[in-house]
């Protein structure tokens, strides 16, 4: 059971899955790190993006990797608008209200999708979905390899953005010290909205990367998002590096436990890990104090 011929592909597959998990978690941790809110609507937004990618292919014939370009821009705008015009104003700045508003959004979006598209599960069939690349003893599916590469590139791009651009620096300033940033002339509401938009953008990109190999239905996003929450909590709320590393870790753990324990128990395992981390180590391995 422990032979490298089985382990290595499992680990590699875990890394590739984990990369996409990490991307979703990245969006979540970015939003938490800057706005200090837990975005309960993240899963619903992922589902919405998956539907968008699905219909971009079905109706417009757009390959998901191409659709990623307009969709990321679209969802950035959506995220920006949601924070700027809904979440921000509705919650009057109170934590308890933000909780409820993001929950309300989650319920709204998810059920709007349910109402519009019904509950059936859909998949798309790409001609190259089953192509494989051979790496040693492992046969890796092409879409997943592409996904892994894209996530790494995206993470790098985000890091560079945060480091070198003015907006990126403003975001980091607001995350560290909101009042000081405000006094320095930074438009905090705008930065909050930009950050939320970036988080939503990550989710849109992840949707495009997932759709070649995954199915979509109105609750698809939730499955990923609980995993994303686990990753964010493990890697530390607000830590980008933590989200990445923890994401890859969780992907591998899921792959290996799926190998030995089967799917349902694997799912419970992730939740249990999530609860345990929340209870005993909420600041995670890399993050700020809870």
């Amino acid at each position, binding site marked *: 059971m422990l032979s490298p011929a089985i382990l290595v592909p499992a680990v590699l597959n875990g890394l590739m899955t984990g990369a996409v998990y990490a991307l979703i978690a990245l969006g979540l941790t970015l939003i938490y790190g800057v706005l200090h809110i837990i975005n309960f609507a993240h899963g619903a937004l992922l589902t919405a993006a998956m539907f968008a990618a699905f219909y971009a292919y079905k109706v417009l014939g757009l390959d998901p990797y191409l659709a990623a370009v307009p969709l990321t821009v679209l969802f950035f705008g959506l995220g920006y608008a949601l924070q700027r015009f809904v979440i921000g104003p509705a919650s009057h700045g109170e934590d308890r209200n933000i909780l409820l*508003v993001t*929950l309300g959004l989650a319920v709204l979006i998810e059920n709007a999708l349910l109402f519009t598209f019904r509950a059936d599960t859909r998949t798309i069939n790409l001609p190259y979905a089953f192509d494989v690349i051979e790496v040693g003893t492992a046969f890796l599916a092409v879409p997943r390899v592409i996904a892994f590469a894209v996530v790494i590139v995206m993470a790098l791009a985000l890091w560079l953005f945060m480091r070198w651009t003015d907006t990126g620096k403003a975001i980091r300033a607001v995350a560290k010290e909101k009042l000081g940033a405000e006094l320095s002339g930074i438009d905090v509401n705008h930065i909050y909205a930009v950050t939320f938009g970036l988080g939503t953008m990550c989710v849109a990109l992840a949707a495009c990367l997932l759709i070649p190999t995954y199915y979509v239905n109105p609750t698809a996003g939730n499955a990923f998002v609980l995993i994303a929450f686990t990753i964010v909590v493990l890697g530390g709320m607000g830590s980008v590096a933590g989200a990445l590393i923890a994401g890859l870790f969780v992907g591998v753990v899921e792959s290996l436990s799926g190998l030995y324990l089967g799917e349902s128990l694997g799912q419970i395992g992730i939740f249990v890990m999530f609860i345990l981390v929340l209870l*005993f180590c909420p600041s995670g391995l890399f993050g700020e104090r809870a």
Partner: protein
Amino acid sequence: MRAFAPIAVAVGLLAAVPLITASNVVLNFLVVALLTALVGQGWNLLGGYGGQYSFGHAAFFGTGAYVTAILQVRYGVNAWLGFVIGIAAGAAVGTFIGALSFRSGLKGSYFALVTLAFAEVLRIIASVAPITGAGVGTLIKLDLRPEALQFQSRVPFYWIILGLVAVSLLIIRIIQDSRFGAYLVALRENEDAAKALGVNTTLVKLGAMTVSAAIAAAGGCFYAQYFLFLDAGIAYGPWISIEALLAPIVGGIGTVFGPLIGSLVIKTLGELTKLVAGDAPGLDLVIYGCVLILIVAFAPNGVAGLLLKARRCFAVLKSLRSEQPHG
């Protein structure tokens, strides 16, 4: 005794309904609304009075429902006894989750997250465990005898759920006027200040959570008896967690009658949407999501808050008018 007068009036009015109408539509609507109100009462104690927002009250509702059902179906336990045990089981789950969460100092979003996670874990377990019938669900055998807590007509069910709601109103009222209730509200307003004044906040929260879970579990037990069918998505699904918090928030968070008012409002809204747009799944929850956001944005104290504002406006207007010189 005066404190209980409003409760007596409200319950009395509701009790009169079956005497006025025999319409199954009305009765069924009210039974479902009262059921939501009951679970909302539970949520409101912990969330409204205590300020700890749970996103997973399904965990208690579903436990009450499943325990009642399984005890009857698999172990032949009497329905009434099963009901009581179901409430106890739900309360125990509440104490368990509360003990873990509060001792770890979880609050705010983290507490909401962990309750969400627990409810989800229970849902997944219920969807695969053989004892709950896994994907097929659990069916309570039709046995229309009072001893089996099943009735031919809806009216006895109505009395029972009304009775449960009445009890919950009394419990909340009594707590509100007690030291425990004062401590609960204090820790909601400022936990550190409460601690400095001698409040064992962890214990108070735990107490509130246990009672809250028991009330929600009672709702679950009733659901099982009324609808006679459960599956993981019904018992532990997000729908009940959302209704549990929506009713009190819409009606007036942290008030005795909030959940009842709110439940009537959202259930009426649900029925109206069905009238307008048909039975398509998901539409009612879409409306609920919108309502939640709108209430938080514009009327954070719910209907009760709006009524209070209206009363104050009215009083100000009256006093202004009485000051005007009479010509």
